[in-house]
């Protein structure tokens, strides 16, 4: 059982960083409840508020890791131009997608939007992390700031989810593959 180096980097970008980021939004839901719940039902302690601030900081860091790994590690392989005489486009995902009218939309809309939309997630999450760390329990006093935080988290989720969806579909239709083989496990039948 083996994968190529480019597969491994793509997995790191999409599943280790991006997938984990999407999972952490369930915890973000709890944080939003913490600042919106009636005071007599749950008022987080100072330590819990600090934890929520660092939780959003970790989410923002995951977001930045995802977009930088995507833009500077995976995307150059995706958009690589094949030599003029090449007929096998399997090593050139963008050109492979654009070579057929049934798949070109995955690039024209999917990748073209994903490569920009994804950046909204770390931008929003960094602002949310800062607000949680600076204001903590005081967020309960600032209704409009709470609304902004909820909106930014929602936008970050939307951006991460759509970018993740398009990333998965792009990699299904034209995998980013190549480089040295990495053996994950040797078969007992070898």
């Amino acid at each position, binding site marked *: 059982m083996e994968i190529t180096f480019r597969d491994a980097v793509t997995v790191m970008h999409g599943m280790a960083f991006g997938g984990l980021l999407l999972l952490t939004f369930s915890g973000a839901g709890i944080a939003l409840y913490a600042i919106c719940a009636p005071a007599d039902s749950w008022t987080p302690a100072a330590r819990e508020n600090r934890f929520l601030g660092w939780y959003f900081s970790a989410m923002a860091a995951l977001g930045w890791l995802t977009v930088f790994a995507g*833009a500077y590690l995976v995307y150059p392989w995706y958009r690589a131009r094949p030599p003029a005489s090449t007929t096998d486009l399997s090593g050139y995902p963008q050109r492979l997608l654009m070579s057929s009218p049934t798949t070109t939309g995955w690039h024209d809309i999917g990748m*073209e939007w994903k490569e*920009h939309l994804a950046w909204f997630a770390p931008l929003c999450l960094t*602002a949310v992390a800062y607000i949680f760390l600076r204001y903590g329990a005081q967020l309960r006093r*600032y209704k409009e700031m709470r609304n*902004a935080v909820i*909106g*930014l988290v929602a936008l970050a989720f939307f951006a991460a989810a759509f970018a993740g969806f398009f990333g998965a579909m792009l990699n299904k239709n034209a995998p980013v593959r190549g480089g040295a083989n990495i053996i994950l496990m040797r078969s007992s039948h070898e």
Partner: protein
Amino acid sequence: MSESLAMPGTNGKGAAAVLAVGVASVTLGVFTLAGDAIPAAASFFNVWNPTGPLSGVTGFTILIWLAAWGFLSRRWAARNVNFHRINLAALVMIAAGLLLTFPPVMDLLQGK
């Protein structure tokens, strides 16, 4: 430090963080459209060739985001601002950014 001593007192720094996201969003949208529509802009944004114009579009957006955040944060550090208006402004800028990065809208604006 107790919670009361840690009270920030004003909402200005929070407003700066929110509005800076709006500034970054509309900047990303405008740069994306420019990079797609104007060859000279695409060339300008091509900071790192393997990634192409995306490197400059996102890199310059981050610089403008940080500059806007820093500027607004210093300006509003000791102030209470009308957060409702900040939210509305940020919402409009974020919506503009989302639309300008959406390929069918970009194509429509370029008459493609």
